[in-house]
């Protein structure tokens, strides 16, 4: 059974249609990214799935329940990492985790979570003394302490320096290694590419592409560029081997050099930019 299933989800704020009928599914143990620029509808989507926001239309099932009418038991099965890492500043790391652990029926042992997020040395420090990266790790710990099956991460690394991002990625990979189903939103491509099994690209409230990171870059054509007679030629093709063979064959026959010959597979970034820039506005 799918951990999350969303069908024709719609949401409007006044005149603005934030979600215009999106559909996707998320299997158990899968890491799924909602990728898109700011304002694409990522946070609206994730907050509807978390049960924070009501939807206007469509059906949503998360772990077998409708989040808009979710039970307490359901809340015990999900973990949420919000964009802001607000916590009680005067509690220590251990106290924070123990406080949240107490909310769940079968929490993970606090010390185990402290280790899992690498905060052993800071376990008895107050939250106010943590660095930004350490706070984020505690954030993951708070989402993890209830031993949830499904974890929502809303832009887990926005505003991080590269080192802190790598640490956060490691933390997310370790969640995945524990077999957790993860839904994350991000506007960083490399993040989606690095972490997810599947990606849905969201633009203006519509999913414009969906698949594995490899799928997304496979669909568009390979680009072959070269210079001939002072002019740059670009050819896009689904059959790069044949096109390249013909091209080089012709050049060899004519005893010419294909200057600046280049064969390029589009990166996810190219695909993303193409998807989120063209059409529309």
């Amino acid at each position, binding site marked *: 059974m799918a951990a999350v299933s969303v069908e024709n989800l719609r949401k409007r704020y006044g005149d603005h249609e934030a979600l215009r009928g999106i559909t996707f599914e998320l299997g158990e143990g899968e890491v799924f990214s909602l990728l898109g620029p700011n304002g694409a509808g990522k946070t609206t989507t994730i907050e509807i799935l*978390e*049960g924070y926001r009501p939807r206007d239309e469509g059906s949503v099932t998360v772990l077998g329940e409708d989040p808009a009418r979710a039970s*307490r038991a359901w809340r*015990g099965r999900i973990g949420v990492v919000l964009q802001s890492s607000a916590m009680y500043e005067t*509690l220590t790391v251990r106290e924070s985790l123990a*406080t949240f652990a*107490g909310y769940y029926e079968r929490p993970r042992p606090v010390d185990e979570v402290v280790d899992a997020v690498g905060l052993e040395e800071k376990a008895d420090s107050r939250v106010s003394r943590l660095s930004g990266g350490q706070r984020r790790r505690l954030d993951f710990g708070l989402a993890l302490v209830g031993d949830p099956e499904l974890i929502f991460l809303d832009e887990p690394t926005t505003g991080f320096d590269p080192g802190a991002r790598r640490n956060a990625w490691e933390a997310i990979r370790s969640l995945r290694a524990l077999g957790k189903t993860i839904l994350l939103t991000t506007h960083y491509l490399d993040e989606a590419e690095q972490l997810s099994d599947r990606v849905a690209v969201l633009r203006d409230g519509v999913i414009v592409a969906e698949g594995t990171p490899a799928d997304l870059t496979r669909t568009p054509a390979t680009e072959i560029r070269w210079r001939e007679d002072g002019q740059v030629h670009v050819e896009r093709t689904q059959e790069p081997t044949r096109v390249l063979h013909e091209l080089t064959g012709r050049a060899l026959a004519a005893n010419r050099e294909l200057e600046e010959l280049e064969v390029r597979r589009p990166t996810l970034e190219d695909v993303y930019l193409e998807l989120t820039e063209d059409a529309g506005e």
Partner: protein
Amino acid sequence: MRLFVHELRTQLRLYSRSRELAFFTFLLPLILFVLLGSVYGDDTIDGFDGSSYLEAGMLGYGVTSVAFAGLAIFIVIRRESGILKRVRATPLPAWAYIAAVITATLVAYALNTAAVLALGRLLFDVPLPPHWLSLALTLLLGALTFAAMGLGLTVAIRSAEGASAAVNAIYLPMAFISGSFFSQHSFPQFLRAIADVLPLTYFIRMTRDVMLQGDEFWDHAGDIAVVAAWGAVGAIIALSRFRWAPSQG
């Protein structure tokens, strides 16, 4: 119930570690008591000994400071920073959280009351109240009322920065007009008219009569009704409009 006790422990710990709350809960009321008591503690006010009269007013000031102002400010700050939203995503029921917050506030107010009574006894020779049960019931009614009003007020405040200003702009004039610091007899007519609708006026009058006249809690059905009515309004607003998510985003 287990969740309530668990959460109460956290709330008490948070309370005990907050310097702001310690200042507004204990230091400020006690400083005011000492200052005002030194100025007119030896006078006779409305037929009562000045310090005794002031002590009842201080318990009234304490209830607005701890249960109304303090509670409203820290709830808005927690809401706007996203802490309440995070708590809401867990299986902790809303009632357990709110009940723990209110109970922690009651504990803080009990300590504030003990400090005011002790200070009055030691510094100004104010006799201890005659009917402990009636005093406890009176203070409990006041604390619950002002806590409900404080929770209701959070609905109207939209930012953490504005919380302190908005709350102070309401509770300080209210404490003044309701007679926390001096007798209302010298007040102009319009201030008395305002005072006549404020719950704190009735609460202070009731507290004073229980402490100084030997009245019992249940002798004051009229005062109880006015105070409880305000509490009910606060509770209704809080129950129907309380927000867990920050105002922006």
